[in-house]
């Protein structure tokens, strides 16, 4: 197999490189790709949508329809991971581990044994592969998470003017929670941001995007034509587009955040949602 693979790869690669020699030079600004469509986008972004970040305009407006499906892809992935992996804990209840906090003794309670009360201050449930909490990690993360989230919100909100937008902000938001789940443990994270929330928020995010588009459709324009929202925002058509873009970016951010967390929950606990990384 290795040899076959190598031979195929070398042949394909040689062929591809041979054809690549006909490409326009790297950095050449005169190829059709740079001169046909993109000038329109660059030159009209301010006029059409009042958004200086051209990528944002193209992403959420000119090709906003693609982006809606891009968000749907993310949502699909979350749903798919849930669908494939999730199993109920009760199906096969393993032994649970508890730590008696005052003494530091670890208890292993087999299935059917008497479990300490939920929320007991004395007994703390721990993972089977548990290392004592590192104070430094826990506290650093606690500090950092807030800043990550703040930055993420900035990225979402300021996507019109600077690099970033819904995706990046959403992933950052999601990773802040994932960081929390790693630095503490999965159960605590799930308590704060549970599966149902993430699933519903994921769908809601995409729904916000598609719903914005659908609202335009209901208002008589074509799907995702934010211009139709102008009466609602009481603004010009260009500003309406700008606001519309913000709306969908927020939707994207919600969806991506929730789904990233959802996927993490399922992957890190192999679908059981009891013990994470």
């Amino acid at each position: 197999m290795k040899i076959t693979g190598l031979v195929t790869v070398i042949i394909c690669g040689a062929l591809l490189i041979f054809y690549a020699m006909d490409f326009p030079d790297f950095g050449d600004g005169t190829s059709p790709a740079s001169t046909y469509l993109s000038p329109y986008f660059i030159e009209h972004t301010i006029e059409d949508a009042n958004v200086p970040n051209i990528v944002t305009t193209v992403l959420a407006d000119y090709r906003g329809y693609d982006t809606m499906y891009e968000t749907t892809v993310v949502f699909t992935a979350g749903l798919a991971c849930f669908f494939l992996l999730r199993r109920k804990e009760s199906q096969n209840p393993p032994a649970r581990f508890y730590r008696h906090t005052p003494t530091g003794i670890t208890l292993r309670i087999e299935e059917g044994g008497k479990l300490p009360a939920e929320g007991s201050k004395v007994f703390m449930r721990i993972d089977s592969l548990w290392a004592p909490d590192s104070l430094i990690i826990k506290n650093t993360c606690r500090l950092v998470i807030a800043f990550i989230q703040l930055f993420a919100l900035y990225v979402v909100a300021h996507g019109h003017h600077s690099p970033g937008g819904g995706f990046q902000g959403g992933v950052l938001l999601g990773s802040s929670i994932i960081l929390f789940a790693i630095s503490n443990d999965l159960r605590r994270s799930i308590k704060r941001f549970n599966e149902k929330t993430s699933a519903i928020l994921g769908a809601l995010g995409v729904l916000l995007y598609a719903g914005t588009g659908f609202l335009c459709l209901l208002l008589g324009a074509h799907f995702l034509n934010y211009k139709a929202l102008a009466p609602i925002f009481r603004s010009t058509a260009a500003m309406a587009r700008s606001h519309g873009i913000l709306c969908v970016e927020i939707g994207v951010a919600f969806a991506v955040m929730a789904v990233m967390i959802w996927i993490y929950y399922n992957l890190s606990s192999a679908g059981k949602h009891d013990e994470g990384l």
Partner: protein
Amino acid sequence: MVQQLPALLIIVPLLTALVVAMASWISPRLCLPLTFSGLALSLAASIGVLMEVIAHGPVTYTMGGWNAPMGIVYVIDYLSSPILVVITSVAILNLISARKSVEESFPGKTGAFYSLYILFTTGMIGIVATGDAFNLYVLLEIAALTGYSLIGLGNDRAPLASLNYLFIGTIGASFYLLGVGYLYIATGTLNMADLARFMPQMADNSMVLFAFIICMTGLFIKMALFPMHGWLPNAYSFSSTAATGVIAPLTTKVMIYAMIRVGLYVFTPAYIFNTLHMSKAIVWVAIAAIVMGSLLALAQKSLLKMLTYIIVAEVGYMVGGFFLGNRMGITGATLHIINDAAMTLCLFMAAGAISYKLKDDSFASMKGLFRKMPVTMIGFGAGALAVIGIPPTCGFFSKWYLITGGMEAGQYGFVAALLFSSLVNAVLFFRIFEIAHFEPFADPHDHHHHGHSETVNEAPLSMVVPLLVVAAALIVLGIYSGDIVTKIIQSAIPAGIV
């Protein structure tokens, strides 16, 4: 409202999928009615669009109000409108039929299943309706991702089969994306109509040639054309029948549609059939696909596996028909997309009902099935006759066009392969009929096999009724194939093709 139909066609299922995903956490009982109504609306929209197209010609819809080539447009023309109806009706029929087995195989996850199911349908609808080469890729990935996950939750071997499908599918989709990238460098646009406009002056551009090769390779991988078919049999036979019921009829067919769309409306027939000298070779690949698919089907011992290899052979029919490059061949390929979707749906729905009842799909377990599940077997028989190509089922007529096309093009190898595969299909299905027809062979060794015979009876009504509807549709499609061809498909083929 009429001008919004193309958008509603795809947005309604998308919104439904999201709502279903949410409803599954709030009130799971709502999922099925929601799914059903979403797909029903989409079906209604697709029929509306079809009527509109027949009455007034192709419909264009600009997403976000941006005209092509700036924005993304949907072009629903003579080629895509019938396929859209096929997709939505296949989805809705299989939904009804699969209801019982979904509840049984995915306890607690029915909401997720339905949501993925609609998303899959959405992806398929989008692939067919879109007029933008890149948008097609995105929708391809939606359909593929949902497909992987629906397939991944089947029997023991399903996850590995699905993972292999994922690897190969990703390679295929990436190749397509790369091909689009090459086209983009060469022309600077992503809109299909716009790309086609550039084609005449690109005849000897090596980048376009390479884009063609790589796009088609990607699509061939995705549609499981013979040497690249390895993923298909396992993926389709190990998964749950509720999922295969919609995936098997649609995936390969829609990929073939994408091939025809990209071939005729991006690269233009003049380029692929006249400038390039590749179509002969591809027809030979298709011949190999037909012959090998049929032979491999003969070697199988279980129903679903056999059906999957028949799909491999059927893919050969359509690819071969398209690359014959004449009007008859392309008509046949297009008509066969519709017919084959119906046939495959019929067979898989029957197989779903059978394995729902028997919990097993090996030939040995099918003894005496005619007596126990007569209606299911009638449906199965109708599908079988269509696959063999017996008039007046629809399979005969598309095969007819394909063979005629093959003769006109002088590709007698293709004609022979088609006839050969018809014969093999006849053998395949009669083997099953024989087993299902004669239960008690006067064979003394067989007695201990009849353990299930008392408990098995006819499949539930929710499975039988859609099956019979499809079976009837096979004949109706056959009877009206003249109308379908003259009113729709002939207009879909560019005038340059004789």
